[in-house]
Structures are given as C-alpha cells and as structure tokens.
C-alpha cells in the first residue's frame, strides 16, 4: 500500500509540474489537455464498441431460429392426386419446373407424366438421398412410380417438406443458415474476387482498396466504387444504419478492425454469407445466400450453375437495383461484369466463362411460397411447443419442427371458408360473418389444417383455438352414447312430447323443438337424426345429466361442466378444436386419440430431441360407438344434414351432426368421412344472431371443403356381435326380414345380446 506521505509527495510533484508549465501559452496547455482527454475517450469508446461487437456477433452467430415444416408429401401408386395438385404441392415445397428435370428440386411435366428429381433431406428417421423418378398419372390418380434411370419400379417416395415458418425473433427476416463447409467454393471465390480481393490478407480494412476507390471517385466526381472490405460490409449490416457519414465510416472501420481481431476469417465469411440482405419477398426480408438461392432459383445453393452464382454475387451491390425479376437487363449486365472479373482472376476457366455468359438469367417466378402463409396453424404449433420449450430455445437453438400440416388441405380449407362466407353473406344479406375450421386425420388425430378466421393472413384472433361458443346440438351424440351405455337401442321408443323440468330456485324449464312441433313416439335413432330436442331431453334426463357430462369428458373434452338440464341442449361453450377432439373419439371407433400437431423435433445436428408419438385409449366399447356412428349416418341420409348430398353423394355414407345455438348465434357442423374429420363453426365475433342454422351455414362450408378433398367413403367396421333388423318406424315393429308392403322401413344395427 502506498502510504499517505508517498501520496502527498506525488501530488506535490504533479502540482510542481503543472506550475512549471506556466511558461507555455494557454493554447498549448488546452491542447495537451484536450489531446489527453480524447485519447482516454477514444480508448473508452473503442472498449465500448468492442463489447457491443462481441456480444452481438456471438448472439447473431449462434442464434438459429426454429424452423417449422409441413408434413412431407408421400407419393405412392393409388394415391388420388392430379398433376396440377402435385405441381401445386411441389411449388409449395420450393420445387421448380425445369425442362428435362436434371438437378435436385426440379420437375418436368408432360402428358400424364411428371419427371422429378427430389432433394436430399434429413428426415427425422434418417437422411434421404436425392433421386430421379418418373411418375405416371391416370384419371386423377398416381398409378405408378419408377426410377427415371433404369425404369425400376418403386413402391413410394416422399418429397422434402415445405418450410412453413420460423420462430425468428425478428419475424419479418428469414434466412437459411449455412455453415462454412456448406458454402460452395465457387461462390466464395467469386464473392471475394468481386467484393474483397484481399480478404484473406487484410486486417479488416484494405487501405489500397480505399485509396483506389478514393481516386476513382474523385476522377469521376461521384461515388462509383466502394473500398469496403467484406468485414466492413458485415459490420454495416449487423450494427449500423445505411447513412453515409464520416462518423459511421469511422465506427465501421474501428468495428471491422475489432471483429478481425476477435474472429477467424472463415467465421466472418460465414456470418457475412448468412447475413447479407439479398431481396424482399412481400413482408419478409431475404437474408443470406442460402435462402436467396431458393428464393430466386428454387435450387439449393450447392446446385447453382456458375452463371446463377455470379448473379447472386452481383446482387450484393444492390439487391433491389439488380433485382433479376424486376430489372432483368440490369441484372444480366451486372452478372456479365461479375463473370468477367471471375475469369480475369482465374476463378473460372475460359470454357465455363463462355457457357455462363450465354446462359439466360433463369430466375423462377415468386409463386405459392409456403413461408408464414398459414399463421393459424403456426399458432397451434407455437402453443404446443410452449408447453415444452422456452421462448429462447425456439429462437436460438436451431430446432427443426416437423408438423402435421397438410398444405393441400389447408389451402382448400382457407379458400372454401372465405368463398362460402362471401356467398352466404351475399345470399342472405347478413354481414360481419366469420368462421373457423379444423380438419384432422380420422384414425390418428393428426391436425391437417386450421383456419382461424375468414381473413387468413391477418394473424390475430384465432377462432379455431380461442373462440369458445355454444355448441347447441353438437352435444347430442354424448347423450345418445350415454343412452346406448344404459341399454337403449336405436329402436327404443322415445316420446318427443313437451315436458317441463322443475328448476331448484328458478323458473321451471320447458324446452321446445326447433320447428316448435311435437313428433310423438319415435324410435330413438330419429331423435338424433332429426335433432329433436324434446326426445333428447327425455333421454338425457332418464340417463342422468351427470352421466352425460362424464361421457363428454370421456370423449376428450376437458373442463368443468355444471350438470344442469340445459346442458342437454348444448348450453356449453367449446372451441372448434375441442369439438374436433370430441368427435375424433367417435370417428376412431371409441378410442381417444389426443390431437397431434407436431410429430418430431430435431436438434440442429438432426438428432431427435422430442417425439410426439401417437397414443390411444379405448374409452367406449366398439359396439356402442358403432351404433352411435350409424345414427350419425342417418343424420345425413335422412335427417337435419340431408342437404349434404348436394356436395357429396349418399354413397359416401358420411357421419355428422349439425349444431345451432339459441337465436341462431352459432352455426356448427362436425362430421367425418372415411379418412378425415372436419369441424366448422360460423358466427359473429360480437355474438349477434347470424340467421343461419347449422345446416344452412356451417354445413355448406363443410360440404365445399370435403368435396374438394377427395374423401374416402366411410365404411364403418362392424364389430363382432352386431345383428341387423328391419324397423317399421310407424308401428315401431322389428323383424329379421323386410316387411311386406311397408313403406319407410329401415335396417338398423343392434348389439346381439341387447333386446330391442
């Protein structure tokens, strides 16, 4: 420690020195002071810049946003898909139409045939190499697949899935991050030849280049040449604005020197290649060569021709100015300049140069990009992920999320919802109508499509997930299923007659039918088929409201539902997604299958980090669900949803149910075909009446959607121990053989050991 005496000594010495400076003029004194001050300030400032640069560079470099993929398209003989539909799907997945289809990501379309070269892709179950295939079509069906070379027949193949979104913190920026080894050498050499000849020898600044540029600019009287190194450009992109001031130049130079001092040349080069802005795609900014290559050429960067590589290198100078789609001539001119430089610097040989010079620009039109096209579905993905991951992991760990989205189904759902709402508004004069749709796979519970409103790209209120609305008669299957569990059969006589239920501490409740009439004694199945309120309430009260509530929960709907009698007529609010879960259990024969939105999550290095596997749980006996589902088929063959035959013929044997809430506020339809389940809700956000019933509103949307999806007919698998009997609805008589001279008789299934 320095003693006090020593310190005093020092202070005195300094005081003496300052005194002795009395001989200098004040100018010099101030000058020295100012100099000392600025040196200190400079070093402090450099230190500050240093911390900024290190923090940001590390952050940027390691921040890999999670990417969400659609399901991969599986192609196999027998698949119902037309050539235009496949083409649409290929475009979504970033494929390009190419005469000859010689490189990965290209396809060629001819009469009844598609030639296709798939891209190599890391699927969760392993790497799938690129392959050349020929696909044969007939009558809207894929009838055969063979290898283009050799003609060997193939059982099936899959297309690498479309990227549908990413969880980048800046959502309007998009990039595909490549490692140094994934950057093609031709690109790197070309880039350095044009932008920064001395990249590997300078220390962040290239004085010769600056002087050369200064000279050239002075001679020309304007800025014609830049002297910035790649490092300076990267710094500018990372940290600084675009303004042209001395101060920015000064900062840029210091930061470039600092960056070079801390990081390896290859690290800087890689960061540059991933960061550089290369164009605008509507609302998203295209960053980095990896994404730019797909965006402009629909090819992976490694598959670009020398001419295409030169185009991208040329665009670095001004991606908007040299936009090949907007200004092809300007861009071509720039590309030729780049090719000249590449030849002069021996990056390419004479032959390559000649071929490249004569090549067309070859850019692909911006079409059907899947990126961030489906915000409602992404919303669902995000919700599921939020249960397992922190926000930080999603924005920085480079996760690859494989979702269950089917882009074809999603597009149909979006189009049909919007178009049908517009049609309904025009026909009925109502306005402000909105809606939501959920489509899942019938047997596995995979969510294929979600529409959260009529305006698809307006992310915001997602009605499919968040609008909790009264379900009306959609609840009825739960009552009839509970009744079947209590020994009711489809032919059990039930009275559809007025009743009054006393209500403790309130007005007695007297439900009415929708058509305000009573239908007398009916076989039970008709109560569901025609959605008769009085018969249903009688059944529900007999079975017990508590039992019905438990049945609803067993069907997969979570929540607390007070067991009031009004529950029986759907005085319960659910979201379309919850309704889909409820009907899923029916559609899969009584097995509860939790809905799935994500199948697998891969880490950045392609190892599986999380599986969202299928799980099943039998909640109801198969026989009971079989009987219930055949009642739901009667809803469509003769009941409230009869008008569905305008969309799909009766031979499809669809099972479904209409739902309408009080005062026509909500219009619902839920139903399933042989392969898909769909739920549609229509209503107004302010909960005002719409004037639509389930059949006149939601059913129309459902019919339009399913008709476009090539549904499989619903052939319910008959469990063991089912026997069929004929019923005369007028007399409620049963017989093992058809009645003679009786009209309207119907064949119904029964569980063998229950007496009708």
């Amino acid at each position, binding site marked *: 420690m320095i003693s006090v005496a020593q310190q005093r000594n020092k202070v005195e010495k300094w005081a003496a020195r300052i005194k002795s400076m009395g001989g200098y003029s004040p100018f010099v004194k101030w000058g020295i002071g100012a100099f000392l001050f600025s040196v200190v300030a400079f070093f402090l400032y450099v230190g500050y810049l240093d911390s900024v640069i290190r923090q940001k560079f590390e952050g940027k470099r390691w921040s890999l946003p999670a990417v969400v993929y659609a*399901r991969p398209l*599986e192609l*196999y*003989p*027998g698949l119902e898909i037309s050539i235009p539909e496949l083409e649409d799907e290929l475009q979504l997945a970033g494929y390009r139409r190419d005469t000859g289809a010689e490189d990965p990501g290209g396809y060629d379309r001819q009469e009844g045939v598609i030639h296709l070269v798939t891209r190599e892709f890391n699927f*969760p*179950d*392993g790497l799938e190499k690129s392959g050349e295939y020929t696909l044969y079509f007939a009558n809207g069906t894929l009838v055969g697949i063979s290898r283009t070379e050799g003609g060997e027949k193939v*059982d*099936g193949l*899959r297309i690498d899935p479309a990227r549908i979104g990413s969880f980048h913190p800046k959502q309007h920026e998009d990039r595909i991050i490549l490692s140094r080894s994934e950057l093609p050498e031709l690109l790197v050499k070309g880039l350095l030849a044009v932008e920064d000849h001395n990249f590997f020898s300078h220390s962040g600044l290239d004085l010769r280049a600056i002087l050369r540029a200064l000279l050239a600019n002075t001679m020309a009287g304007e800025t014609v040449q830049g002297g910035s190194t790649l490092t300076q450009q990267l710094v500018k992109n990372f940290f600084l604005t675009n303004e042209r001031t001395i101060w920015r130049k000064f900062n840029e130079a210091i930061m470039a020197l600092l960056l070079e001092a801390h990081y390896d040349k290859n690290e800087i080069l890689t960061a540059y290649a991933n960061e550089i802005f290369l164009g605008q795609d509507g609302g998203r900014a295209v960053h980095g060569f990896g994404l730019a290559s797909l965006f402009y050429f629909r090819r992976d960067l490694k598959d670009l021709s020398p001419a295409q590589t030169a185009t991208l290198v040329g665009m670095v100078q001004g991606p908007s100015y040299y936009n090949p789609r907007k200004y092809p001539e300007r861009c071509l001119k720039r590309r030729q300049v780049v090719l000249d430089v590449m030849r002069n610097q021996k990056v390419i040989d004479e032959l390559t140069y000649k071929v490249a010079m004569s090549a067309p620009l070859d850019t692909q039109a911006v079409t059907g990009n899947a990126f961030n096209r489906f915000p409602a579905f992404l919303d669902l993905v995000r919700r599921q992920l939020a249960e397992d991951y922190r926000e930080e992991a999603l924005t920085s760990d480079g996760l690859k999320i494989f979702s269950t989205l089917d882009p074809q189904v999603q597009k149909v759902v979006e189009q049909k919802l919007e178009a049908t709402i517009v049609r309904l508004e025009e026909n009925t004069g109502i306005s402000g109508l909105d809606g939501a749709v959920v489509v899942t*796979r*019938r*047997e*596995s519970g*995979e969510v294929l499509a979600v529409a959260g409103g009529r305006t698809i790209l307006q992310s915001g209120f997602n009605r499919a997930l968040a609008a909790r609305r009264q379900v009306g008669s959609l609840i009825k299957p739960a009552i009839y299923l509970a009744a079947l569990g209590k020994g009711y059969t489809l032919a059990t006589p039930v009275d559809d007659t007025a009743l009054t239920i006393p209500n403790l501490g309130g007005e007695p409740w007297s439900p009415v039918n929708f058509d305000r009439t009573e239908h007398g004694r009916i076989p039970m199945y008709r109560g569901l088929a025609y959605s008769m309120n009085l018969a249903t309430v009688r059944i529900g009260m007999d079975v017990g409201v508590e039992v019905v509530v438990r049945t609803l929960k067993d069907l997969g709907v979570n929540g607390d539902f007070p067991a009031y009698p009004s529950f029986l007529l759907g005085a319960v609010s659910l979201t379309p997604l919850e309704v889909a879960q409820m009907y899923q259990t029916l559609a*899969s*024969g*009584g*097995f509860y299958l939790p809905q799935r939105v994500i*199948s*697998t999550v891969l880490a950045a290095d392609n190892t*599986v980090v999380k*599986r969202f*596997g*299928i*799980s*099943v*749980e*039998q909640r109801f006996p*198969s026989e009971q669900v079989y009987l219930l589902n055949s009642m739901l088929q009667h809803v469509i063959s003769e009941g409230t949803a009869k008008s569905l035959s305008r969309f799909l013929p009766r031979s499809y044997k669809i099972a479904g149910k209409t739902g309408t809430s009080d005062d026509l506020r909500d219009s619902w339809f839920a139903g399933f075909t042989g*392969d898909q389940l769909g739920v549609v809700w229509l209503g107004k956000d302010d909960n005002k009446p719409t004037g639509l019933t389930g059949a006149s509103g939601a059913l129309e949307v459902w019919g339009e959607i399913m008709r476009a999806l090539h549904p499989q007919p619903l052939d319910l*698998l*008959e*469990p063991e121990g089912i026997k069929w009997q004929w019923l005369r609805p007028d007399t409620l008589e049963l017989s093992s053989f058809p009645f003679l001279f009786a009209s309207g008789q119907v064949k119904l299934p029964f569980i063998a050991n229950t007496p009708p």
Partner: protein
Amino acid sequence: MDVKVHIRNWMLSGNQEQPCRLRLIMILLVLSCVIANCAPQKRVSIPIFRQEPQEQVPLPPGQTGTLLTSANEAMQAGQLDKAEMHIERALRMSPQDPQLWHGMARIRFEQGNYAQTIQFCLKSNSLAGKNGAIVRQNWLLMEKAYLKTGEEEKAIQSREKASESY
C-alpha cells in the same frame, strides 16, 4: 430402461478375469450379423417374440409393406424411435391396417410402456375384423403386457382369447 443400455451393462459387467469373454461375444455377434446379411432378404414380417410359435402374417402390399419391413428392421436394431416413425408414415397411407397398429403395440412393449401396448392391441383388434392371425398376435402380446404389469388374471384371459381366435 433402454434395451441398449441393458445390453451394454450386461456386456461390461463381465468378469475382469475373463476379458476374452466380451471379445468372444462381440466376434460372435459380428459373425451372426454377417451371416444374417448374406441370407436373401424376404419380405415377411419378423415376429419379435421367438418363443411363441407365431404364424407369419403376409405383409400389406406396396409402400405400407415396405415401411413395415423397415420398422421391423429398425426395431431389431433397437432403434425404437425410428421404427415408430416408419409405422407412423405407413399409417398415413393405410390408417386402418391392423398390422400397423399391432406394430405400434410391439414398439410400445419394447419401450416398456405396457399400458399403451394393451391399448394399441385393442385398437388393432378393433380393425382386424376376421383376420384371426392378427387378433391372435394381439391377445398374445396383451398377455405378455399384463404379465409385466402384474395383472395375472387378465393375462390368463388374454391367452384364452388368443386360443379362441383359432
């Protein structure tokens, strides 16, 4: 516990005085793999429980069958995640194929998830219709799962059901 971990523990727990035992096992393993690979590849599903006299169920045609074969191979190699993903793929094409649901049940069994093994067997049975062989395999697998969960009575019932389905 993971099957691979089991095997590794067992191999490493070998007596220190007999270091050659481990090596011998490894050599035998490699040899058997080589021999197995030499055999012509037949497109039949491989029953995983050898002690049962199981009949071969013909593979579904086309891509579904190819994927089921891949799933079987992955399962034999202890890659259960991979096997599961193959079956999920096949299910997207043939969602009502009881053999695929049975395959899922076998994977769950290997994963030690016996409750789900039983559920997948039930699901498979609900789709099997008159396919007696599949129904039998499901009941036999359920018997094993019930034995694992200590529900002996249900195991016995399952065995009876299996023999009834002949």
